[in-house]
């Protein structure tokens, strides 16, 4: 009975909080509990969902264009972003890009970094999301049978992970693992997988922490690139 009463109490609190009826002190106390009580977060989210339905029939109204302009000016003061994908932005053709990436592998060898790039990568792939926020290079080191992965830019969203996949022909994607927090890593490649690198495609998807629970990509595919021979 008292457990039920507590549950009711929490439901009422979550509703009061969602409506904004609490005093600042009460709200602060409730928030402290929210951070550590999933059931309470669910109750709050459910109430927010229910109450938002009250906004459903409020007529839409197109805001004047100046609002959008002001928002963009506030958020992106560095002027209009360039359109187009990463490759075009740098004015590089695929060949030049491959050369650039190869050069990168050859020249980047910072002392103190545990993971070094392959001296003579056999295949490379250059993955970049459409907006260029995520940039990851990969190079296959045949000498050690490892795929060298270098995350140049971007990271997993908070509470999410980036997972690397190899797609060979018509076969379903094979997971090569979740990218670590370190920006460079080496992933061992079995001889069987190594055989399918030629003509293969690497992809990175957004997945729950620890990687896809199903063994296939479940989240958005953020970046894709073919493996090309150096």
């Amino acid at each position, binding site marked *: 009975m008292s457990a039920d009463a507590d549950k009711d109490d929490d439901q009422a609190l979550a509703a009061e909080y969602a409506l904004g009826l609490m005093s600042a002190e009460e709200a602060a106390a409730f928030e402290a509990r929210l951070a550590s009580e*999933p059931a309470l977060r669910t109750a709050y*989210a459910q109430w*927010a969902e229910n109450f*938002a*339905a009250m906004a459903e029939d409020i007529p839409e109204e197109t805001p004047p264009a100046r609002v959008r302009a002001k928002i963009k000016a506030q958020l992106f003061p560095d002027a209009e972003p360039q359109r187009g994908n990463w490759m075009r932005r740098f004015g590089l053709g695929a060949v030049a890009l491959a050369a650039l990436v190869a050069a990168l592998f050859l020249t980047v060898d910072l002392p103190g970094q545990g993971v070094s790039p392959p001296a003579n990568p056999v295949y490379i792939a250059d993955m970049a999301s459409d907006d260029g926020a995520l940039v990851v290079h990969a190079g296959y080191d045949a000498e050690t049978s490892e795929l060298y992965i270098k995350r140049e830019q971007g990271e997993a969203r908070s509470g999410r992970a980036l997972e690397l996949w190899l797609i060979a022909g018509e076969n379903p994607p094979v997971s090569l693992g979740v990218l670590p927090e370190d920006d460079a890593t080496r992933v061992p490649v079995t001889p069987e997988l190594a055989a399918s690198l030629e003509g293969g495609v690497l992809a990175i998807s*957004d997945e729950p922490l620890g990687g896809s629970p199903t063994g296939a990509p479940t989240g*958005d595919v953020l970046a894709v690139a073919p493996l090309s021979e150096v």
Partner: protein
Amino acid sequence: MDRKELETLIAKCALGDRAAFDALYAATSSKLFGIVLRILKTRAEAEEVLQEVYVKIWQKSDRYAAGGFSPMTWVITIARNAAIDALRRRKGGAEALSETVINTVPDAGPGPEVLAVQAGERARLMGCMSELEPDRAEAVQAAYLEGDSYADLAERYDVSINTMRTWLRRSLLKLRECLSR
């Protein structure tokens, strides 16, 4: 635009994708401006608040997934809370609403279960609201769309704050019970 598409746009915003932000603005700004305008009544103020709302949406998009909200509810709640805050600032003195919807980072465990949002949500809510006594349903609506505090509501219905609180809590639990049927 369906839920999945909106979630993708929010996820891309979290990755810094400005084109996704443009698309999200195009898909939601009329809805949110309507809500903000309804709460604030004056266009100039509504425009300012809408700007604030989208800045928050962009900056907090990485928190979206942790909240367990559907994407429309997430943006609507940010807009509604910002508008109510502006209204309260205008009235002077009253407490600002909390921003847990965009700020809470759970320190343990999974996020809330994904909620099933179906069409006709409003019909369901209104059906359940109509089971409440009319003045209490009105009070719930006044709190949500006009930002009334317990003190405001107590004055409106000419009862003590404690009575108002007891009333409303009972009504909210009744509403909960109806909605979970």
